[in-house]
């Protein structure tokens, strides 16, 4: 009897220590996250990015982002800067044929030419900020990553799954750890690692439900190597838009989305 009880508790302990201890797998969590992201593809966002350098200097950029669910393909995104004057009219266009296959273009009014850019730059700084180009793209291809739930904990008052995500393809980071809010299925915190070293982290705050879609209105991203940080504040967001395909053309990119 005693033996069987010990056996039961040992079995329970092993079960709790293994990934199966969680009701969901890491992949399950990200399928939920992906579902929320896909529901939010059709949108228009007005946002302000404030860049803070370690010397206390501050630069501000305002931008408009247009998104579209491009079914049967994946999605289309157009980002246009409205200020400062140096960046006004600069634009960035993505056509994602699938979540893994994207075409990227940039437009600089100074050169009056649309330029194709390789996807290799997806992890580079987005116009001097601590966000990457990828942060402004649509949902990723889930099959390009492996997922492992590390633990459950509360962040910013929200119970979260803490998931380690590792890319199978070459990226600037070797892994990231994300705090995914249970029941909301959005990130509340993210940490990017190069091997064991933390180089970039972000916090997603002021999460509000707009049209049933949980949306962080304030995202703070910090580069731990440069001590530079960027705060992105959403001024206005509208979901369930149905922009025409013409808005995601090179012509619209040149016209600043107008």
């Amino acid at each position, binding site marked *: 009897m005693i033996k069987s009880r010990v056996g039961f508790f040992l079995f329970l302990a092993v079960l709790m220590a293994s990934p199966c201890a969680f009701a969901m797998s890491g992949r399950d969590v990200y399928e939920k996250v992906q579902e929320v992201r896909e529901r939010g593809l059709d949108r228009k966002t007005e946002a302000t990015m404030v860049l803070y350098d370690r010397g206390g200097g501050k630069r501000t950029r305002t931008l408009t982002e247009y998104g579209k669910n491009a079914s049967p393909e994946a999605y289309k995104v157009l980002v246009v800067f409205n200020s400062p*004057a140096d960046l006004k009219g600069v634009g960035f266009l993505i056509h994602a044929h699938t979540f893994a296959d994207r075409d990227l273009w940039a437009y600089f009014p100074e050169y009056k030419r649309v330029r194709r850019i390789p996807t290799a730059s997806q992890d580079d700084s987005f116009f001097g900020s601590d966000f990457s180009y990828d942060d402004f793209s649509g949902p990723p291809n889930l099959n390009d990553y492996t997922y492992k739930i590390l633990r459950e904990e509360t962040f910013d008052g929200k119970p979260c799954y803490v998931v380690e995500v590792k890319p199978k393809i070459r990226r600037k980071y070797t892994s990231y750890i994300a705090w995914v809010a249970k029941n909301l299925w959005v990130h509340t915190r993210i940490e990017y690692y190069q091997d064991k070293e933390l180089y970039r982290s972000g916090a997603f705050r002021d999460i509000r439900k707009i049209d049933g879609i949980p949306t962080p209105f304030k995202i703070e991203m910090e580069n731990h190597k440069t001590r530079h940080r960027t705060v992105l504040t959403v001024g206005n967001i509208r979901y369930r838009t149905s922009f025409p395909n013409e808005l995601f053309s090179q012509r619209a990119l040149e016209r600043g989305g107008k």
Partner: protein
Amino acid sequence: MKKALVVTMLLAVCASTGFAEDFLSVSGRLNLRGVIPLNNNSATEYPSLLGRVKIDTTPPTWKFHLWLEGGWDGSVDLPAHDHSVLKTWDEVYQSTTPFLEFKELYGAYSTDILEIRAGVQRFSWGRLDEYPVNDLLNPWDYTQFLRKSLEDRKIGVPSLSARVSKGDWNVEAVWVPILVPYRLPLPTERWAGSTEITALADQPGVEVLTREPDLPARNLKNSSVGVRLQNTGPVEWGITLFHGYDPRPVFKATTLVVTPESGKLVVDPGIVPDFHKMSSFGLDAAAVKGDWSFRAEAAYAVGRYFNTQRELWGYPSDITPGRYDLNPNEHKSDTIEYGLGVDYRLFEDCLLTLQAQQTVILNRPETLYDRKFETLFWANLKNGFLNQKVETNLNLAYNPEHGDTMAKANAWYVFTDSWKAGVTAVAFWGPSQSLFGRYSKNDQIEAEVIFSW
């Protein structure tokens, strides 16, 4: 033009009051620049204070766009007092400071698939960064040649354009009803380069006259047209057709006249800018492969004109009073031009751009300075530091046929959203008739402060 200026000022006042904030978008910049020449024998350039205002109406269907530039241009040697402040479309030599220029001024009507624009426009056709071979609709301002970027060199032309976009297809047609001539500096100005005229102007006791050309009659026959078809796919490609005036300068030699006058020699060099019609058929393409972004373009041009070597123009070795008939110095030939450019991201915020292009003069006589094959190699290394607070650019250009080279390096520091400052150094080497060698006295360091809003 004066009416346009008044309308512009009214719009600027409306915008500045905030009255029309939802209707107008206004931006601008002020630029203070000083030049330190590195060659004592070169012409002086005084400090410049230049301004730029851009105004756009925001409603999408009917749109108005303005880009006005102006200010005090320190590269102008002796401002001509008989000129208006506004730069015109009928003169090659416009030594004007202070000046105002409409770089762009047009109205546009747009629907989902169609856009029609009328007014002063600049176009960017083709793919290459420097000398895009299919970019022929706008003439260039050579008054500060090679210190200005390609887009800043372009002169806006009065034109009517229509663009139809449907799916992956784009067709654009442009009509430029009048010839707008390229602009050249006076022989005594800093960017005049090394020419027969500047050689004369450098001699003590010699005054060189510059003569405006007789421009072709402004009628329908002398207008220029261009059509461009473009497809966006995994490989983007375009076809361009152009029939109109060649925007590149060529000179006609007539008669050299040297007249003694009040103890000096007044020289009419007998060389005037010339204008010829040409036709061009071009192809271009762009694609991304791995970490590389490729761009290519080619054009077959019919009826281009080239100047013969200067030694054959018939200038006497000594300038003495008299009239000297000069030799015919132009040669007509078809050309094929092609080029390939690539961008490669070396690491974050560091982009290397390489470009090679070649012009083939199909029936080249031995009298031309240009070789049958003329090649240009360009390399640009752009690097950003400190989250793009600092940006550096290193630019190298080399023409192997004549061994001429240009090296340009600059660095910018962004203080705030509005203020930035930069330093640029540029140097030229090569024979005096070559593209870069003609500016071999123009090595300089330039400092700039920009305030934008």
